[in-house]
């Protein structure tokens, strides 16, 4: 660029100089001509005037003086007088003198008449002079100047010669050299030309230096810096400059380079510090790049990786697992995936992989935990079931038998209750250990729950063999167990079932082993029994349920749900029915129909029933304190509870100790519940009413439904069973029945509540029939106490049940 700029600048300067020189040369010539003309002017005037004088007077003295002057004038070479025809009128000055001499001697003679049309003259300048103009002609080649001056006729001559006004007599021609005029002007012009040239050259030089310093040099520095950037030296910077265009350009480029450097640095850091291994592979499978994590995971120096073959199928999205050596020398697992990408402008594949050893270990642990019992480390119920199913498939294929032992520790609950859970856990661990020792390694020992264990005996010969093993296990378990606090003799009862004789699937085999165990218990514990075909399974199931209910009571698994009751037809809140629920930790909510009869049979209903009243009292107190009026809460009381004398005593104690408020509580009884001993029932109900409880007849229409009941019993409300309500809109009989019940109850002055209302149609029809209140899914499902308060946040005070109005 510098060279080009220099050439251009030089050319421009040369052009300027040439132009200047040319201009000067023109001016110089003009000056020379002007100087010469000035010099000749008075000579010309004098000559012309003396010529006129000569013509007018014929006296040649004056012109002689002037001719002498002319002769002495430097540079004036020739003076010629030309006639109209362009020919010299006088050949020379001598001729003129002769004319003069002649004129002195003779009188003036008229010249011949001029021709009418003078011949055309070749020289235009001469013609111009003849027309009256003074002309100057310079011939630089011979360095001469020729002046042509028109000779005008004097007015007096006209008369004599016959010339017209317009006609010129002739032309005075003065030819002179320019050399001396040139010499005069020359010095001054040379000086000014030299000065101008110097000015131009100096300006050019200054421009060159300025451009070099301000533009060329900074650009050069930017260029060298940019070249370093290109070659990877992103830390290079353009030197700082004032904030002109180039300085700003440099700063912008610096900023760009800085940002690029930072980004590159960050990206490099990310890749270098990433725990994810990254490898770039070209289309031939050769490694082009590997980050430190890749080297670490593959346990190779990075330099060794580059150029090697990794051997991963180059398919975008491909995933696989590889084994790696971890930092601690142990073997681990890495998950590897392939992504199509570009490298250096070429198609390539990025392979990323990361250590998933811990994650897989955690997953394996979680799987193990899900399938094993934490206390004993044995497989749990789920795992055992799975293993049993597989064993069955195998045994069926190979025609083998297998046996399931169901082992229950006798009186384990006592150990827990008297010695504490720590001792109980210790005992369970000891039992697990002994079971494991008592059977072959190929057999499966599992803990089902609590104090129940199972054993899968694979490939057992027959029933007797299985019983032998069971007996051996029982005896091994019965050996004294040294616990940290004391020594125990665990006693176990074992049931045995056999595949394929007792069942061909896991569930049946387990159930039958369980049944056999139950029968063994009945037969006197601490023994092993095989399943026999005549053994009923219902009893076994009941036995289990009973055990579970005991556990439920101990573990506080019972819940009290509430279902709202509303008035008809308005739908206003009246009260709630309290409903007992059992939330089994494994099976979830258990249907009341499944366990309430058993509670009654086992007598647990007294304890659980009291818990229901206590819970209801607590909830009522909470609602009262929260300012929520929930109306009357109705609690179900079973026949067993009513039949005993201590129901009233229990309730009295609750009123005293738990703040149970009878005026807020209603008691629901079933027809069958009071049917046994009417007199006793009436007496108990009377005592309850005296305390302020209200009584409702539940499930009306399903039991004896004797009219006498309604008349004899001291009750405050009748609840129509859901079975009638269900068909009321479709079934004419149900509709009539309900109408009759309502009429009958109203006849006795008792309000009626319909249970199990599920649709708007049912509610409407019941209201039309005069039913006083309703309850059912249409209004609200039963729910925990907390949910109910959400259901009815606007409940204000003074919402007593309809029953009080009787």
């Amino acid at each position, binding site marked *: 660029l510098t060279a080009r700029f220099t050439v251009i600048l030089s050319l421009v300067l040369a052009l300027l100089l040439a132009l200047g020189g040319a201009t000067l040369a023109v001016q110089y010539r003009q000056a020379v001509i002007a100087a010469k003309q000035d010099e000749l002017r008075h000579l010309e005037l004098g000559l012309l005037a003396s010529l006129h004088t000569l013509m007018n007077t014929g006296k040649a003295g004056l012109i002689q003086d002037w001719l002498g002057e002319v002769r002495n004038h430097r540079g004036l070479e020739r003076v010629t007088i030309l006639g109209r025809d362009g020919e010299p009128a006088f050949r020379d000055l001598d001729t003129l003198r002769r004319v003069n001499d002649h004129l002195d001697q003779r009188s003036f003679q008229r010249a011949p008449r001029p021709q009418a049309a003078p011949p055309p003259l070749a020289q235009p300048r001469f013609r111009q002079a003849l027309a009256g103009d003074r002309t100057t002609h310079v011939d630089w080649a011979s360095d001469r100047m020729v002046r042509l001056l028109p000779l005008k006729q004097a007015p007096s001559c006209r008369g004599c010669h016959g010339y017209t006004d317009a006609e010129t007599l002739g032309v005075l021609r003065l030819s002179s050299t320019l050399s001396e005029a040139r010499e005069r002007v020359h010095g001054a012009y040379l000086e000014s030309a030299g000065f101008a040239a110097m000015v131009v050259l100096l300006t050019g030089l200054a421009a060159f230096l300025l451009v070099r310093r301000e533009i060329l040099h900074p650009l050069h520095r930017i260029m060298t810096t940019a070249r370093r950037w290109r070659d990877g030296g992103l830390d290079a910077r353009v030197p700082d400059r004032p904030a002109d265009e180039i300085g700003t350009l440099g700063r912008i480029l610096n900023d760009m380079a800085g940002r690029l450097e930072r980004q590159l640095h960050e990206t490099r850091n990310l890749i270098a510090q990433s725990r994810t291994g990254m490898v770039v592979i070209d289309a031939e499978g050769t490694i082009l790049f590997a980050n430190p994590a890749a080297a670490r*995971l*593959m346990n*190779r120096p990075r330099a060794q*990786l580059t150029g*090697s*073959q*990794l*051997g*991963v*199928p180059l*398919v975008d999205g*491909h995933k*696989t*697992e*590889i*084994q*790696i*050596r971890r930092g601690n020398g142990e*073997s681990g*697992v*890495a998950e*590897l995936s392939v992504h199509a990408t570009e490298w250096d402008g070429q198609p390539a594949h990025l392979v990323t992989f990361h250590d998933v050893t811990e994650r897989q270990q955690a997953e394996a642990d979680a799987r193990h935990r899900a399938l094993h019992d934490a206390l004993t480390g044995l497989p749990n119920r789920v795992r055992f079931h799975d293993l049993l199913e597989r064993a069955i498939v195998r045994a069926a294929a190979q025609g083998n038998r297998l046996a399931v032992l169901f082992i229950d520790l006798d009186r384990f609950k006592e150990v827990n209750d008297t010695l504490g859970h720590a001792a109980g856990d210790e005992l369970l661990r000891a039992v697990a250990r002994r079971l494991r020792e008592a059977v072959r390694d190929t057999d499966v020992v599992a803990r089902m729950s609590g104090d129940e264990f199972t054993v899968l005996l694979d490939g057992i010969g027959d029933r007797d063999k299985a019983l032998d093993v069971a007996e051996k296990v029982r005896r091994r378990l019965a050996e004294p167990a040294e616990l940290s606090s004391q020594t125990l003799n665990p006693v176990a009862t074992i049931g045995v079932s056999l595949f394929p004789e007792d069942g061909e699937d896991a569930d049946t085999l387990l159930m039958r082993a369980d049944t056999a165990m139950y029968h063994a218990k009945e037969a006197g514990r601490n023994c092993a029994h095989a399943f026999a075909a005549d053994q009923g399974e219902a009893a076994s199931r009941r036995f289990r349920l009973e055990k579970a209910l005991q556990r439920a009571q101990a573990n506080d698994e019972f819940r009290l749900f509430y279902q709202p009751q509303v008035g008809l037809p308005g739908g206003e809140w009246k009260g709630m029915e309290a409903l007992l629920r059992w939330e089994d930790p494994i099976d979830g909510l258990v249907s009341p129909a499944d366990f309430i009869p058993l509670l009654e049979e086992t007598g647990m209903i007294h304890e659980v029933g009291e818990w229901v009243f206590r819970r209801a009292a607590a909830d009522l107190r909470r609602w009262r304190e929260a300012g929520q009026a929930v109306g009357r809460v109705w609690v179900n009381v079973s026949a067993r509870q009513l039949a005993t004398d201590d129901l009233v005593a229990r309730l009295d104690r609750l009123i005293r100790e738990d703040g149970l408020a009878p005026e807020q509580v209603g008691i629901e009884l079933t027809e069958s519940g009071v049917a046994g001993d009417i007199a006793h029932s009436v007496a108990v109900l009377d005592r309850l009413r005296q305390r302020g409880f209200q009584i409702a007849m539940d499930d009306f229409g399903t039991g004896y439904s004797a009219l006498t009941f309604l008349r004899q019993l001291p009750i405050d409300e009748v609840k129509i069973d859901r079975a009638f309500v269900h068909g009321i809109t479709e079934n004419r009989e149900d509709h009539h029945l309900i109408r009759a019940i309502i009429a009958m109850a109203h006849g006795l002055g008792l309000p009626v509540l319909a249970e199990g209302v599920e649709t708007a149609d049912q509610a409407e029809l019941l209201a039309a029939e005069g039913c006083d209140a309703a309850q059912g899914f249409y209004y609200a499902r039963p729910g925990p106490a907390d949910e109910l308060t959400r259901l009815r946040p606007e409940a204000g005070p003074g919402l007593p049940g309809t029953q009080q109005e009787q």
Partner: protein
Amino acid sequence: MGKYTLKLYVTGHTPRSQQAIDNLRGILEAEFADRYELEIIDVLEKPQLAEDEKILATPTLIKELPPPLRRVIGDLSDRDQVLLGLDLRTVGAGRPDTSDGGSHHD
């Protein structure tokens, strides 16, 4: 009819190694029946061999014959990817016919 000569490099007798071996045998039995030779090399037992072959990760499967030499790393669970990686099949091609496969590589 040429045989397929394959070498599988694994690390130790782990369940993971066994899984890779099982996966590979499944593929080879299904695709090449008795027309293959498989050598299994434990890099813990023969580290020099692994070093010579520049085994970067295990499991690595190397197909020595027929050419071209090809290697596949990973658990060999994806049959198509394994065959593709060994250059024994192009994507989308069907199951190679026995005679065709043999003559093709002879």
